[in-house]
């Protein structure tokens, strides 16, 4: 038993580090370090740099422009990206729809969609949840009715992340009302410019319209945009979810934030002449977080080792999701605690690109509460942590 990297893997790690140091744009690094939101242009620019290097889609097969990296190399790449603060690609195109197109799409669909996703020429968003279909996703009602060579789509989707930037949306739609709810769902790709689609931004607690409601009013979609077979969409959607679970634990980001917590604690006055890093209670909790992060990291490595010998990802991804998100939320609380009164100003615009004013409060302390509020989503989205616990009870414990 060992958890060591091979010499080749270590060389690869150094190559990734060197690449990040030289190629991750300095202005983006500055933004990330200052908790300033990256806009669409920022994210696309970085993705195109990765594309030029041939590293845009580490998990894709080589034939579609992916890498031939091992699971361990992918892990090293994701880890170094996270530690450096370089953003992961927006998952909707690269990690979610693309694997489904590869597995179930026609040759024509692959040619049509995959190159643009790889090059970040197209931005994708997700049309899954509906106002009455959240954790119980299969009860979705948005209907697609076949009319000649087209489907006519009516209904609404919600929690659509960053749809304001999107060119395409992949949707789960109901194509049969007469069968078991999972068996009447289809997987449809829809051009966001199609007449009849409207977006209503939803402002979240941090003041940013990160998600939208998407309304479909007699939206005509060419039938050639159907993926696979009609009424098989639920199966495809489940495949998509297992692909999405890689790197869900967020260990590298956690390590970076732990380091930030320690740095901030060392600079934050405790009000009694010392610093917060000297507080026994704070130190204790820092240690707890660090220990949990190690337990999480080794759980992830064990999953990785299983994947490397060809085992399919199983319910352990639920463990990584639950522990990873709840640990991130604990760290959010600690950032708030360190910021104290400095996180009270509600001035979201000072963390938006292009803000030219003088920020309120030292450093980016005023972002702590905003992040704490926003990250409550972590335990809700991507299959709520309650759903993850259901999966463990059923699939692992047989309850």
């Amino acid at each position, binding site marked *: 038993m060992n958890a060591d990297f091979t010499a080749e893997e270590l060389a690869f790690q150094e190559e990734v580090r060197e690449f990040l140091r030289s190629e991750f744009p300095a202005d983006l690094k500055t933004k990330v370090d200052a908790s300033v939101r990256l806009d669409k242009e920022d994210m696309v620019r970085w993705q195109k740099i990765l594309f030029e290097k041939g590293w845009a889609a580490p998990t894709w097969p080589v034939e579609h422009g992916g890498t031939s990296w091992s699971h361990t190399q992918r892990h090293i790449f994701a880890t170094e990206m996270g530690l450096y603060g370089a953003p992961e690609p927006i998952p909707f195109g690269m990690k979610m729809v693309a694997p489904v197109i590869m597995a179930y799409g026609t040759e024509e669909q692959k040619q049509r969609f995959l190159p643009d996703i790889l090059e970040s020429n197209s931005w994708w968003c997700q049309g899954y*949840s509906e106002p*009455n279909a*959240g*954790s*119980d996703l299969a*009860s979705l009602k948005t209907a697609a009715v076949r009319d000649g060579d087209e489907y006519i789509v009516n209904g609404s989707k*919600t*929690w659509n992340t960053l749809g304001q930037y999107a060119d395409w949306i992949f949707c789960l739609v109901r194509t049969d009302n007469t069968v078991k709810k999972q068996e009447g769902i289809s997987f449809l790709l829809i051009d966001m410019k199609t007449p009849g689609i409207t977006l209503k931004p*939803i*402002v*979240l*607690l941090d*003041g940013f319209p990160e*998600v939208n409601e998407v309304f479909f009013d007699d939206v005509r979609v060419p039938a050639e945009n159907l993926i696979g077979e009609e009424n098989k969409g639920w199966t495809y959607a489940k495949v998509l979810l297992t692909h999405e679970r890689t790197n869900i634990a967020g260990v590298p980001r956690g390590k970076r934030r732990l380091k930030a917590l320690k740095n901030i604690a060392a600079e*934050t*006055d*405790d*009000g*009694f*002449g010392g610093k917060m890093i000297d*507080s026994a*209670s*704070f130190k204790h909790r820092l240690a707890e977080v660090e220990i949990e992060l190690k337990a999480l990291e080794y759980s992830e490595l064990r999953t990785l080792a299983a994947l490397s010998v060809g085992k399919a990802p199983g319910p352990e991804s639920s463990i990584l999701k639950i522990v990873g998100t709840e640990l991130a*939320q604990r760290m959010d*609380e600690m950032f*708030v*605690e360190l910021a*104290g*009164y*400095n*996180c*009270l*100003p*509600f*001035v979201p615009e000072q963390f938006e690109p292009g803000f030219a004013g003088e920020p*309120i*409060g*030292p450093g980016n302390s005023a972002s702590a*509460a*905003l992040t*704490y*509020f*926003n990250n*409550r*989503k972590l*335990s*809700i*989205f991507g299959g*709520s*942590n*309650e759903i993850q*616990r259901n999966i463990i009870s059923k699939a692992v414990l047989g309850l």
Partner: protein
Amino acid sequence: MDFSYTDVQQMLQDSVQKFVQKSYDFDTRNTILNSEKGYSNENWQLFAELGWLAVPFSEEDGGLGGSAVDLMVIMEEFGKANLIEPYTAAAVLSGSLVAELATGEAKTMLVESIIGGELLLASAFAEPGSRFNPGSVATSATADGDDVILNGTKVAVENGPNANKLLVSARESGDVRDAQGISVFVVDASTPGISMRSYQTVDGKMASEVTLTDVKVPASNRLGEAGAALPAIEVATNRAIVAVSAEAVGALEVLLQKTVEYSKTRKQFGTPIGTFQALQHRMADMFIQCQLARSIVIMAAMILDGDDSAEEKARAVAAAKSRIGKAIKDVGQEAIQIHGGIAMTEELDVGHLFKRVTALDLAFGDGDYHTQRFAQL
């Protein structure tokens, strides 16, 4: 032993409830929040008319009694409504400080104008390096003939943008954290040398960062004896802590109630989510947290109103704020989680209550700060 309210307290609660139900729904609150001043002066004048601004003061000072239990009664109802008006900052904290420190004619005038709703005060205690310790004061007060010159920076001054006058803690002698040497000055907000950066807080209140540069005030604007203000600041802060803790109790109660209601109507998998035992137990835990929070705030209010030593009172208040901090995290986070995505939006009051209780957790020191304070006292 009797934990029931007196008839007068009952009437006070009824009157606040009536106002809140009639004139302070979610939409009205949003309108006030987005208005130019960020609070409603009309409401403030109504509070004066109804006598609520007199509640923090003793009868001797011209008020209605000034008990901490009375404050608790009002603040719980304000908490349920997620009220924006700066009652704690202007009436409880600043009012109590005036009551503790001012004397004679000056006191009468100040108290009367607070109670009458004409004078809106803000207390400027916290500084960039003080964290939650009001006894850490770097802002300097230097005598200059019959005047005093103030220099320093104050942060998180709640109601700063709308205050006519500020109560500024400043050091006349000693080192930053010496208990002796701190005075409080009444400073007109328009005095030259005061600059404010104002902002709305995460929970919709107005606050400022205040920089004082060679601000000249008459020495007669000092409240009480020179250099002896810290005990009074602590007394006023303790009362304000009971106020914000009671406000949190009200807000948490609403969060629980709304979560339970939602779980009865929100259906997933063909059944209301409230039928899932996994969620039922968590809501039962939220209920327990709410009850313990209420109990300890009652304890703190009763001890503040009693004859215990200053130290015992401080311990009781620290215990309450510490315990409330835990309840805020548990109940607040669970309310969001059980609601799901919908509570992440600005459209639902649950998210706004969550933001309010998060700010209340920090107010005058978070749970961890007060746990340590309790251990040291």
